């Protein structure tokens, strides 16, 4: 390989901020004047991935829209832990209506703004996986189909968490939930079910669809920024670990989100007008087992009465994703993560810069 002069920034853009980068090359979260759209005092569990994801996504959107943003939130953990009378953790205009109508409410806000000639104010609809892929599915599809100018963010923690960890249409195979328990040899949640919501969104041929995790902040912020550059329906599917619901340690939230990408189980990509445009490559591939073990919702797969065949099936799913989305770096080695300048997202998408 020919010698290449590269500039190194110690921790590059893997970290939130970096004193070696120019301030505007760092993430929004690094800024002292970040919006803190979801501020302290909320009642989320320790280590809540959704609380983190919500602040990440909304702060990035607030920055991109210069603070001109309205959010419509579905019923769920995020709504409940953030607005228990008399306390609200939100610092932007925010409305909660029902469980299944967040996309429609967001559409309504967007329509009102359009009627009033205030299309400079942008709209975000948000909800959990239950509120998005199940009960909110119809409204979401309608919003997509109509072409409403709404960015919808789904915080996917893979079950109905707020009501006590029940299975949703986003619960992955083999996962234990309150109504998919591995009793009597049942493997947990069934294989062959579940909706690939990002793909469904892409099938609507909306301007922008992206997946992201809370482990890669830079990537997430870039995607929100990109989304806000566009008009029309946009969809962001954000993987957010739930320590309580998944039986993981609170401090492992980001690690687990990192692992889900590094195994290939959760492909991180962008699509525009129905076609995949960029893919975040796996940096250091790991077997699915490394991702599964820290979560007690998969504990039944291991140990004396474990199910190695199920683990193998999950590995096959991951491998299929890797093949389908081309998730491994093409030059055969996990390449340098350093480049001159700090272009935020580029086709190689190595997640660093």
């Amino acid at each position, binding site marked *: 390989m020919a010698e290449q002069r590269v500039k190194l920034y110690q921790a590059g853009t893997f970290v939130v901020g970096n004193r070696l980068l120019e301030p505007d090359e760092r993430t929004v979260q690094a800024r002292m004047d970040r919006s803190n759209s979801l501020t302290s005092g909320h009642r989320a569990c320790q280590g809540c991935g959704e609380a983190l994801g919500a602040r990440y996504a909304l702060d990035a959107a607030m920055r991109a829209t210069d*603070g*001109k*943003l*309205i959010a*419509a*939130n579905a019923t769920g953990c995020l*709504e*409940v832990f953030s*607005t*228990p*009378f*008399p306390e*609200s953790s*939100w*610092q*932007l*205009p*925010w*409305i*909660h*209506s*029902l469980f*299944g*109508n967040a996309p*429609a*409410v*967001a*559409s*309504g*806000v*967007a*329509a*009102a*703004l*359009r*009627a*009033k*000639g205030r299309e400079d*104010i942008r709209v975000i609809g948000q909800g959990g996986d239950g509120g998005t892929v199940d009960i909110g599915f*119809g*409204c979401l*599809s*309608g919003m997509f*189909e*109509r072409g*409403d100018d709404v960015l919808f963010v789904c915080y996917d923690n893979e079950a109905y968490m707020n009501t006590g960890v029940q299975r949703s249409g986003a619960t992955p195979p083999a996962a234990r939930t309150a109504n998919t328990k591995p009793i009597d040899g049942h493997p947990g949640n069934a294989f062959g079910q579940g909706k690939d919501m990002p793909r469904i969104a892409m099938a609507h041929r909306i301007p922008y669809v992206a997946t992201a995790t809370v482990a890669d902040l830079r990537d997430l912020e870039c995607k929100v920024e990109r989304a806000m550059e566009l008009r029309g329906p946009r969809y962001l599917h954000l993987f957010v670990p739930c320590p309580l619901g998944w039986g993981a340690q609170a401090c492992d939230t980001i690690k687990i989100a990192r692992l889900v990408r590094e195994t290939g189980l959760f492909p991180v990509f962008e699509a525009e007008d129905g076609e995949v445009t960029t893919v975040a490559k796996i940096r250091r591939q790991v077997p699915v087992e490394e991702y599964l073990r820290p979560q007690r919702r998969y504990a039944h797969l291991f140990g004396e009465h474990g199910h190695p065949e199920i683990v193998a099936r999950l590995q096959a799913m991951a491998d299929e994703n890797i093949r389908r989305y081309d998730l491994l770096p093409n030059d055969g080695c996990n390449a340098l993560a350093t480049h001159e300048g700090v272009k935020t997202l580029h086709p190689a998408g190595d997640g660093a810069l």
Partner: protein
Amino acid sequence: MFRQIEGSAAVAETVARCRPEVVCAYPISPQTHIVEGLSDLVRAGRLEPCEYVTVESEFAALSVCIGASAAGARAYTATASQGLLYMAEALYNASGLGLPIVMTVANRAIGAPINIWNDHSDTMSQRDCGWIQLYAETNQEAADLHVQAFRIAERLSLPVMVCMDGFILTHAYERIDVPTKAQVDAFLPSFEPRQVLDPADPVTIGAMVGPEAFTEVRYLAHAKQLQALDLIPQVAAEFADAFGRSSGGLVRGYKAENAETVVVALGSVLGTIEDTVDELREEGVSIGALAIKSFRPFPLEEVRAALGAAKRVVVLEKALAVGIGGIVSANVRMALSGIQLHGYTAIAGLGGRPITKKSLRALFTDAVADRLPPLSFLDMDWKRVEAELQRMGEGGRSGPHAENVLREAGIVAARSH
């Protein structure tokens, strides 16, 4: 200006003149011509700025209105029957959040069995959802009530549904004085929301309220409706001043003063009732009618005042509370608490069955003679019902009641066994 115009079209034009900024449309018979009319007006540029949003369900229709209203836009939609039920969750949400949405309900029966014709079971089923419910007797009133509705809704921050009988009013061509743009602009100020989603002054709308404050919140919703009891007549009076005709209000008596027998009803059936009352009056019967215009809030005082001196009250209802009987009559009875009189509930017109002068005449005559049972069903085919009841008593697989009844009537071929 008077025009020969379909009821739905009149409503569409009038609503358009109220300058809604967001209109949501999901079609259901018999409301379709209203939303179609509004679509044409928006497309022709005669209603702007207005975002006309075609939604994927009634639940979405009201939800879009909720979002729009919360963002400070005047929002409107229309529905009927199954659609109203489908948005039931959103109805409570809109009233709970205090959003002044106006909605037309083209009254229609609720299935099963599916039935597209008029009765009041849809709006009656949602009487407690917190919306103000106004019932129109005529197409003129239906149009006029929308203008009043926006004003009432926005003044109180409470949603209002304007109920008009499906097909009977919506699809009837009548001579209507459609309010002009100037008239409406003069009557209806622009929408000043009590709370609004605005980045310049952010708020959190839709918090979770626990036991420590929920009761107070619900009482406050009730209190708002009680305020409406004053506001509705006030707005009606102002409307009369501005438009030169009487529309709306809480109740309207027809020859009810000093009447021994008063017939109480809602909606378009009052036209036929009044004709029948006129006939019987000619014959010397002391009979009158009372139209209830505002069903929610229920005008207890006004109803009591109108009926307190009568000897008997006949409540003619287009809905049936299965398992108990009348709905309106139960509300009327509350108004008459402590007053002794003969009370009769007559269920009529379910699923669009025509209510004829002939039948009403017989009904009223029976009422005056106190020959009526407390709960009666106008023009009921008792033979069919008894035959079916007998079949049910025999047990076994008798099949759905509706099919059996139709089979008896020869409408459906008999089963071959």
